[in-house]
């Protein structure tokens, strides 16, 4: 479960941000989670809570906003949703994108012009939106 590695990054960053804001206790941590990585939210949430134990993040409320992934073709301008292409991916391909989202260029092409030269316009990784 590499969700633990991502969780650790989040906790590590959040503590630093809280310290910079001179918070003695974090009340709410708001995270944006992109759809592309298909993160196992149960594991991710559990991991964040485990790793937070004994820190100023313990007992804070963790809010998640799942962001739908939009892909934008650099070649023809077409915009489409990752989920349209997701169905046709094998287990192994999904796993690769789960680890390194940019490998999406190996496995997906623009449905309109067939180019792999597109960008993940929205819904790429995990971001910290707010901490209070």
């Amino acid at each position, binding site marked *: *479960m*590499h969700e*633990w*590695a*991502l969780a*650790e*990054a*989040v906790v*590590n*960053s*959040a503590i*630093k*941000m809280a310290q910079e804001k001179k918070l003695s206790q974090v009340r709410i941590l708001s995270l*944006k989670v992109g759809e592309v990585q298909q993160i196992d939210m149960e594991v991710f949430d559990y991991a964040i809570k485990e790793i937070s134990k004994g820190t100023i993040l313990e007992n804070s409320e963790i809010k998640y906003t799942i962001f739908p992934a939009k892909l934008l073709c*650099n070649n023809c301008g077409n915009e489409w949703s990752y989920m349209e292409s997701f169905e046709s991916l094998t287990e*192994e391909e999904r796993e*690769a994108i789960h*680890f*390194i*989202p*940019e*490998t999406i*260029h*190996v496995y997906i092409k623009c449905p309109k012009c067939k180019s*792999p*030269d597109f*960008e*993940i316009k929205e819904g*790429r*990784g*995990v*971001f*910290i*939106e707010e901490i209070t």
Partner: protein
Amino acid sequence: MIHDPRTSIIDKRLENVKNIIAIGSGKGGVGKSTFSSLLSLFLNKKGYKVGLLDLDIYGPSTHLILNAEDKTPQEEYGLKPVDINGIEFMSIIYFTQNKPLIMRGKELTDTILEIFAITRWNNLDYLIIDMPPGMGEVLLDLIKFIKNLQFIVITNPTKIAMETVEKLIRFLKESNYPILGLVENMKNKDGTFVKEKCKELNVKYLGHISF
């Protein structure tokens, strides 16, 4: 303000790595990958704990030299590098089925950040990084995100290669990034051209490897 949590975990992922050495050139085809692999094997044989990270995302090669293609990194609170005869190894090929991977620079940055954020190196004496040619994202992001990075620069003894290699050296020197020295690879005849360039550029000449 939106914050990317990956950038702050990198230091932690590398905290038990004593030396991080990037094998660069600017120029392609001078033997960066060959040298990175051989250096890793050599250090490992000497008894050091060694990791090798292939960051040539468009054209990875070290998996071929080390015959590392048929393994896979294991998921364990992140990804454990593959063990190749005692060398900890990580490459983009474990995620691409070795198929073509095109991308733009912004995405190279994301790829590199992701690899550093999820790869869990053991205690290492040396992490060797095999760099791509060019002076774009991979170079600039390594400099930006990796603390205590050192460079070994490699060239072949031709004016054409040195023309570009000199650019990398000048850039690193001007910005005060430490260069351990320069390796002259593919030496196939006598000549002191590269040695003289080293003097001119104030870089240590580490030695040569014959063609």
